[in-house]
């Protein structure tokens, strides 16, 4: 086995580990790290396979490709982290809801509970729950503003009514 093959296999291993991580880990920061592990793996395969050239010189083309790839990866990572911070700031959580459960129309009546409360307790720490509760209150207050934008009914009941309308199946509101 040549060095190239060895490192290519290692890259595949990283690819697999990252893939498992992105599927199985729930915390978004973990998922983002996992994508970076996957990309490291792919880059390693790319260079390691091209390491086996005839002439004896390493092939610069894959090196350039990996350089490009690293830059693309950091761009995507930075964007994902920006999204995560924003998402956290607005929801107090670091996990994606189940696909579709947040999309208001497709939310079955019971499905909101399916992911919010149990996930909330799953971190195992009370502080998080508190953080979210505080957040939720703030969210309600805030909703007053948002809905004024919508409905131009701009009065106080509307702000409070947000909670009631949450029952309509709107995933975000009951937080």
């Amino acid at each position, binding site marked *: 086995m040549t060095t190239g093959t060895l490192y290519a296999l290692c890259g595949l291993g990283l690819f697999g580990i990252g893939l498992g991580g992105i599927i199985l880990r729930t915390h978004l920061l973990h998922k983002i790290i996992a994508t970076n592990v996957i990309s490291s793996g792919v880059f390693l395969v790319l260079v390691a396979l091209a390491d086996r050239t005839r002439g004896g010189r390493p092939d610069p083309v894959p090196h350039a490709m990996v350089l490009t790839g690293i830059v693309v990866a950091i761009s995507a990572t930075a964007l994902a982290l920006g999204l995560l911070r924003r998402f956290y700031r607005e929801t107090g959580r670091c996990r994606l809801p189940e696909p579709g459960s947040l999309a208001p129309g497709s939310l079955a009546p019971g499905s909101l509970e399916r992911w919010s409360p149990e996930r909330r307790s799953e971190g195992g720490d009370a502080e998080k729950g508190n953080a979210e509760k505080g957040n939720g209150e703030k969210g309600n207050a805030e909703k007053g503003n948002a809905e*004024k934008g919508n409905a131009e009914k701009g009065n106080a009941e509307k702000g409070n009514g947000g909670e009631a309308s949450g029952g309509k199946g709107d995933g975000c509101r009951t937080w």
Partner: protein
Amino acid sequence: MPDLVIVAPILVPLVAGVVAYVAGRLRRGVAIAVAVLQLPLACGLAWEVLRRGPLHYEVGGWSAPLGIQLYADGLTALMICMASIVELAVGVYALGYFEWTERESQPSDHTPPGPSATGPAATGTTTSESAKRSRGGSFWPLSLLLAGSLNGLFLSGDIFNLYISLELLTLAAVGLIGLAASLDALAAALRYLLIAVVGSLFYLLGVSFLYSLYGTLDWQQLAMRFEFDFVSRCAIVLLVLGLLVKAALFPLHFWLPAAHGSAPSPASALLSGLVLKAAFFVILRLWFEVFPHPRLALAGQLLGGLGAAAILWGSLQAIRQRRLKLLVAYSSVAQIGYLFLVFALASDPAVAWNAWSGTAYFMLSHACAKSAAFLAVGSLQLAARGGEIEDVTGAAADHPVTVYAFALAGVGLMGLPPSGGFVAKWLLLRAALESHQVGLAIVMLAGGVLAVGYVFRVLGRAFAATDGAPQRPIPRLMQWTPLVLALVSVGLGLVALQPLELLRIGAPFAPSSSAQSAGLSEQAGLGEQAGLGEQAGLGEQAGANP
């Protein structure tokens, strides 16, 4: 100068995107000017391709294995025309959209804060106001960069360059979804970003296998050197799997409805109309022009089967939706299914041309119809102050133009004559029947019937008697642009000959002229077989001597 024809569709929007990023208040003007300019550029490219056959351009003057090659054939030209039409319409619509949303939300910002909004919140609103303006402003550079990346992807002759283009599209799409700033949009954008990045990495791993096997990244050289061995098959699986995620084929579509349903409407139109097509375009290219091999037929059947499943599943979900934009987004899931039927159909060489050209035409007409539908729905939603289908009750009375636009777009989605969707489905159906894949034909018909179902769910509400509250007025731009785009999608059925002739150039299948002309003349009701034959002959000639 003919060389410029192939570079300009990439150069102009990308440079304009950079300019729009720094230009401050000029950005809107820049964006619109470029959107208008792109249409003649795309037509120029199509004309050159028609005249000279497939075009090659070596960027930097380095020939293929070392440098990057741009390549334009009929399919590329058609895609670029498609993109420029949709981008123009979306750009014009967005002018009205962002101006209007800013204007509409401003008064509420200035109203005295309610009991919930205390002092700090009030300062918060001023912050938010400027943020909002700049956010509407970010649409322009993002959409320009998106347009440039799309054209770059369609023109690219290099599989690594395709990877970068795909990533550009992903990041631009995420930015566009993020413009909506709603929580749904954030979650959808995050999910889309993670999934799309992993998809790209699958693709890149496939690229690395191919490169280490064949020592080239140029797909035409790859096509010449390609051997169907085990490693290559692994590479095919990786490439196609990565792209399937981005094209949202049925079991991998789960990110799509939320992402397209929560983006701002102009962005949804771009994403559903164009970005999905880009990933599919790459699969189409690679599958039929790089890896064509009889033993791919089985995998093709699998993809076709998934496509059929997507048609049924997406349509049924669309019918079940309560929200307008999700309905349209699920319709995209279904329509993507039609595109994938080609992999099952084209395994029979006799019908391959019909299936392939039908699919390409389907991309074109679906891009127009779906974008029009999203734009129309966006207008209706704004007018109705709500995104539920219920909310548009009676919209036809207040906004007849918009409702009419949605209906026309629906005609395209359902594939009724004389729309472009009809031509495409007709070609696909013929291919299915002639290759005795009756199941697929039935699914196609069922998909059409189901599309009638979901389109009429909206139309039914729109035409229902209203219960009083009149809807808000919306700017003219936002009423007429969807209508024009929808008219284009319908009109595509009447001018099908020219695009199909364009497609012929550099096509992977020699058109079996008898089936082709018979099919076309029947559906288009033109009956000028002789003329068509002539045109076809010309097209072939043009293709032969570039």
